[in-house]
């Protein structure tokens, strides 16, 4: 009557079809309990699957792509580019003389394109008023559930190149 029957036990039909009709109460309860236990096993397997997926997930390899020349854009200016694929739209902002930041342009709420508001010094999503910090892409206000993925930039001579995406 456990989850797995041993061959030495009585046949299953003797358990399931008793000669006493009142014993049906036991049979239905046992079957329901077994179903609940198997459902519990399913939930556990689901959690294990997430654990294995998180342990053995490969970190994706990103290409190196030229974004802009140094001093190509003014301070508080922006440049739009695509990275890592032509379908991934990104926005680069020059925050000071020597500092550049770049983020995915896709809002983490419903994927509208975010734009840079120089007046408020933040990234804004026009669809549902989701605002992101220019410093680290974190959510300042609105419905977005997580920060904008950040593009890692590197200086290569007089060029700025994108080398990775953080927080996808």
């Amino acid at each position, binding site marked *: *009557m*456990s*989850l797995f029957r041993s061959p030495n036990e*009585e046949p299953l039909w*003797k358990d399931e079809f*008793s*000669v*006493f009709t009142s*014993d049906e*109460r*036991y049979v239905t*309860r*046992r079957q*329901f*309990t*077994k179903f*609940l*236990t198997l*459902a*519990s*096993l399913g*939930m*556990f397997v*689901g*959690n*294990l699957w*997430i*654990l294995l*997926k*998180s342990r053995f997930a490969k970190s994706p390899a990103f290409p190196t792509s030229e974004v802009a020349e140094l001093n190509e854009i003014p301070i508080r200016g922006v440049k739009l580019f695509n990275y890592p694929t032509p379908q991934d739209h990104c926005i680069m902002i020059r925050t000071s003389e020597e500092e550049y930041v770049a983020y995915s342009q896709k809002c983490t709420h419903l994927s509208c394109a975010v734009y840079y508001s120089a007046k408020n010094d933040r990234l804004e999503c026009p669809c549902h008023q989701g605002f992101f910090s220019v410093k680290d892409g974190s959510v300042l206000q609105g419905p977005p*559930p*997580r920060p904008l993925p950040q593009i890692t930039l590197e200086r290569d001579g007089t060029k700025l190149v994108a080398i990775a995406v953080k*927080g*996808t």
Partner: protein
Amino acid sequence: MANLDPSKQRRGLVAIDGAMALIVILLIVQIWLLSATLETYLAGHAGAVLPGAIFSGLLFSAALTLNSFVNRVEKSSRRPH
């Protein structure tokens, strides 16, 4: 045919019903735990994944223990075939 004390049978059924109610509660907690773990993982926080799996395993072993308890009670309070 062996006769069994009706009060013993009734007690057995009550015990089985109680165990079933407990398993249902454990299962609801496990469903919530799975959805919460999945949501945190997809949000990029992998720190909650291991504790979630351990806690889910503990809940499953509790459900398994209750299942064997139900089987034991059934054997002791049900009439022999």
